[in-house]
């Protein structure tokens, strides 16, 4: 097996998991799905610079080969931004839950809430 195969399949698996989670009916898995999609996308962007082993982008005179620094710089900020995005989505989910009493996002009534209302 090659590193390229491992990375490509990992990206595929993470994307599949991310999409699946994003389509769930409650907010928390959706946030996890977003986080997982971020992993996949960051890896994908990183892979655009091709895979290189043991030659980090530290400049030396006379160095023959090096890894592509540009995707790395882009991914570095992307990782930090994905944190901001995940945090914001999570807090949005939390506030919605606190305001409405349900963490559902499928547009259907919450069985728990209905249950409680029937009892009172």
């Amino acid at each position: 097996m090659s590193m390229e195969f491992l990375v490509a399949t990992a990206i595929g698996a993470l994307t599949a998991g991310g999409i699946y989670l994003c389509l769930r009916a409650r907010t928390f898995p959706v946030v996890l799905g977003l986080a997982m999609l971020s992993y996949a996308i960051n890896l994908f962007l990183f892979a655009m610079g091709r895979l290189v082993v043991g030659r980090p982008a530290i400049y030396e005179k006379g160095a023959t080969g090096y890894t592509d620094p540009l995707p790395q710089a882009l991914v570095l900020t992307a990782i930090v931004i994905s944190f901001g995005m995940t945090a914001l989505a999570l807090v949005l989910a939390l506030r919605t839950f606190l305001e409405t009493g349900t963490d559902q996002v499928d547009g259907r009534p919450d069985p728990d809430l209905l249950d409680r209302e029937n009892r009172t």
Partner: protein
Amino acid sequence: MHLILLALLPFLGSAWLALLPRASRGVHAGIAVAHVVAALGLLLFVAPGVLNGIADQVRYAWVPALDLSVTLRLDALGLLFAGLILGIGLLIVVYARFYLPAGEPMGRFLSLLLLFQGAMLGIALSGNILLLLIFWELTSLSSFLLIGFRSDKAEGRQGARMALAVTGGGGLALIGGLLLLGHVAGSYELTDVLAQGDVVRASPLYPAALVLILLGCFTKSAQFPFHFWLPHAMAAPTPVSAYLHSATMVKAGVFLLARLWPVLAGTDLWFYLVATTGLITMVVGAAIALFRHDLKAILAYSTVSQLGLMTMLFGFGTPAAALAGIFHLLNHSLFKAALFMNAGIVDHEAGTRDIRLLGGLAKLMPITAALGMIAAASMAGLPPLGGFLSKEMMLEEAVHTAWLGAPWVVPLVALVGAALSVAYSLRFIVQLYLGPQRDAYPASPHDPPAGLWAPSALLVALTIAVGLFPALLTGWLITPAAADITGGTAPEFHPALWHGITPALMLSVIAVAAGGLMLWRHGPLLRGWELLRLPDAKRLFEAALERLVQWARRMSDAVHNGSLQRQLALMFLLAVVIGVEAIWYGGYAPGTRPLLPAPPVAIVAWTLLLAATAAVALVPRQRFVTLIYISVIGLVVSLAFIYLSAPDLALTQISVETVTILLLLLALNLLPKQPVQLSSNQERARNLLLGLAGGTASGLAAWAVMTRAPNDPISSYHWANSYSGGGGTNVVNVTLVDFRAFDTFGEITVLGIAALTIFALLQPAARGVSGQRLREWIADLPRSPERHPMMFAVAARLLLPLAMMVGLYIFLRGHNSPGGGFIAGLIVSIALLMQYMASGFEWADQRRQIDEHALIGFGVIIAALTGVGSLLFDAPLFTSAFGYFTLPIVGKFELATAMLFDIGVALAVIGAVMLALAELSHIAQRAQKEPAEDDGPMDVDPAKLRGLQR
């Protein structure tokens, strides 16, 4: 150069006033007067040159690719308009100083007024039609703020909204029209456009451009059927009405008609559209004015009517009519500003503007009454005043104009309009000032201090002087201005009170007689008018708006049923379909780049990652456990980064991972832990299928790219210039803080905004329904008996200085070795968070010295200043500089401005991370402390209302 200063002066004054909200009223007025006087002086200074036929012009390229330039150009027409804007503006500032009650924020008012004045002046000075558009929109926006100045009153807000909707909507049409015009003329420079009249009129695009431009002009100048916004804009304080509706805002449309006259006028289409609209507006506005009772409403509709008159004159398309139009523009500005100020004085002193409650004021406030009656007489077109001359000229032109071959239509309708104008003007005089005194007025009317009446007295004096010596006083300005409108030689301007017995004079006499008759029989006429039950434009407008909103809501309800699932599923499906389509037609072609062999450790890590991914996706109900799986994924990704030559990414990933997991833990504490399964098996199978399709597609895409040879357009540039140009050997870091520093600046700004949004979302969560829920929330997990274990607390405290050192070290070496601001910021945050975890929120928060908001702000500001600083050295934005220095003991070291930028990055990251986590971590405690019933920021709390309904 003078023109630039002239255009900037009102804006400078506006900014200055906005910065001094607490200064005294006198200081505010002083600042405003100083700026307007300076601008007026500058205008007079350049005037002689302009009048000698040398149009002053300056030009700076702004966006050359769009042919957008800052071209300022002053000709006689612009001079006339700018003179009115500044001259009447000066009087309005003085008037406002005495008019506004002590409680109103004078600084804000004058600041907005000068902002508006700057926008209007910009229209008069623009030498590029795109620039003109920008100022045009700015007048709409600033007048919105002025009309809605009393934002606590519903009618002020509604009037402002209506004005913005109508004039802003017309502005949209105008954008289209001017773009078409520039396209046809081949340039957006006004001088070039004006020279292309024949080309434009012959173009097939001419009708479309004309209609769009006219929509802009007619909405701005309140022409029928867009006239209804103007009376509702009267909710503004009177100085605003006096300014916007006499000399400025509403004249902008008429001014643009005059400005583009050489290009657009002269066709049948122009005549029938413009002249007819003007004619109808003149009669409709005058008729409504006659039957209103609010002084300002009477003046507003009379303004509509008078604007119609000017529009009609420009619509005739003859040079003589254009001359009459511009002359009336001047006269109308003089008497209408005076009348608005007069109505304001009456309102101020008598306590009402309802003409039915007033009357007989001549004895009580003689000065005001004298001024008001003279100005109204000018509006009626009575000799020997300015208004008489231009109305005479209008009738003269009307007599010579045939409409659809019928020579009597225009003179007859114009006569009706003139008679109605006489009637409402005389009504102003007779029912307000003359007649018997009332027994009681809402207040006791008397003449105001000179500051209030002096400005209108000056205008009234001018309107008398213009009537007596028109050629001497205005000829020098009107003649060249008319020449600028017609784009050639000016028609002869010989206004006089007596021309002998002409058809115009006959019509004038008939109009006065008919007007007097109408006033005499006003009572019966009013009852007849009320029987007509004309539709109320405001209600129609609101109903139309309501329908639009309903329609929009129905649209969005149809697209969005409240299910995030459906939205996302459609989006993912679309992405997959596009991907399949691309492969279908483009083919799938991986390359033959030599592959890297995978060591056994990598295969083990990969297996772990796949297993963890499957576990997160398939065991969703154990939410805490899924967090462990998620962190496994993060760890494997970090390891991959290390192995694949990306140490910076690995450091970032691992620290972000830590913070993210902490955040998820905190949120999960308050969210349901083991929710009921909602989706059916069928739905889950569908989702799984969609996920697998997306995953396969992205995996295949990644594989195809990775197996092809690299295509390297710019990366090697970064590598080659990192050390020599950026002064650092860590190319990733140099890229972040130097090559692409502007990007990085954007990223930290976004991060800061995200953190502030989190703060804004969580801060009010302790109140209302959500606060109630938080107070009822019971910890549903077993707690450790030791809340702050001693070992953990002591170790965390010992570790703090060490962790800080590591952070500093990572920061300092970042330019040359893996590290840098992002990573250092994250490490320091984690070190601080550890204190919060070990010793509790209260303890740690009390020892916190710096506010997180300030950290974010300082970070972004430091980064911005570093970037802007390079401009001082004539280098492009965000250029970094570096040098090597030697100190005893320390030895040789490097200092780079990029390091300063990196400090900004680190501060912003620390602030953002700490703010997000700190807010989340103590929200439940905060709700406990919050009193159950508190005084919210609003009297009506929407959240509470919803709670009640439930």
